[in-house]
């Protein structure tokens, strides 16, 4: 985990040093790497017997809990986001 963040900080330093240059192609590389990462996550999930075998029996409960937690946290995040936007509009 800290290795990952170290990589990002390294990238930030290099990006900052090269800030005079136009590095727009890096956005395209990011999207392609996101696709690759999701593909590999899929491979990992697909080849994990424990996950695939239990998918039918326990998958529905798991998915319902996950969806409810995502929606709940998104709703509270939306409240905070609305509140902050309203405040900033008042200030400006």
């Amino acid at each position, binding site marked *: 985990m800290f*290795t*990952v*963040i170290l*990589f*990002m900080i390294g*990238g*930030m*330093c*290099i*990006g*900052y040093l090269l*800030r005079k*240059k136009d*590095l727009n192609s*890096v*956005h395209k590389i*990011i999207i392609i*790497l*996101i*696709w*690759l*990462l*999701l*593909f*590999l*996550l*899929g*491979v*990992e*999930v*697909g*080849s*994990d017997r424990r*996950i695939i075998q*239990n998918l039918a029996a*326990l998958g529905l*409960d*798991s*998915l*319902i*809990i*996950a*969806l*409810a*937690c*995502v929606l*709940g*946290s*998104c*709703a*509270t*995040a*939306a409240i*905070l*986001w*609305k*509140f*902050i936007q309203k*405040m*900033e509009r008042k200030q400006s």
Partner: protein
Amino acid sequence: MKSSLIIVSFFLLGTLCGIFHWLPSDITQGNLSFYVLCALMFCVGISVGNSPQTLKNFRTLNPRLAFLPLMTIAGTFAGALVTGAFLPDRSIPECLAIGSGFGYYSLSSIFISEYKGAELGTIALLSNISREIITLLFAPLLVRWFGRLAPIASGGATTMDTTLPVITRYSGQQFVILSIYHGFVVDFSVPFLVTFFCSL
């Protein structure tokens, strides 16, 4: 919407490859996905450091955004409470324990297996993997429906590593630091909250 669909199809293609062993097995044995994640974070770093606008935008972020981890935890509990009340086979504390994984599936499933047995541990594993996958796949939609903070809240404990690239892509680069801070705080809360709800 289109970007979500492309991401979903890459994920599904990968799953099929995994189920039917279409790829040489050393791909899953090695740490390939970890190296890809490192490369991805390196690129995210470059794009953040490269645009002087990002740092300026970060300074204009409202300090009240520091409450975001609390909002994430409260919203997750609300969702888990509702499912606990409606799912016939699962009690409310069980659902709260599973929800308290916040996408950190490795740790939470180990804890829950230990305290509550393998079945609930497997549900915790599947549920928290689903949370990470939902965040990765639907980040663009979540931004449209719930605003720019939604993918961060949805990502839970994973917003400082695996879901960070997607968040910076769809919420905006000014949220990088917030996202790492959020992941760190939520991550830290996982062992305490999971243990607490398992002991109820």
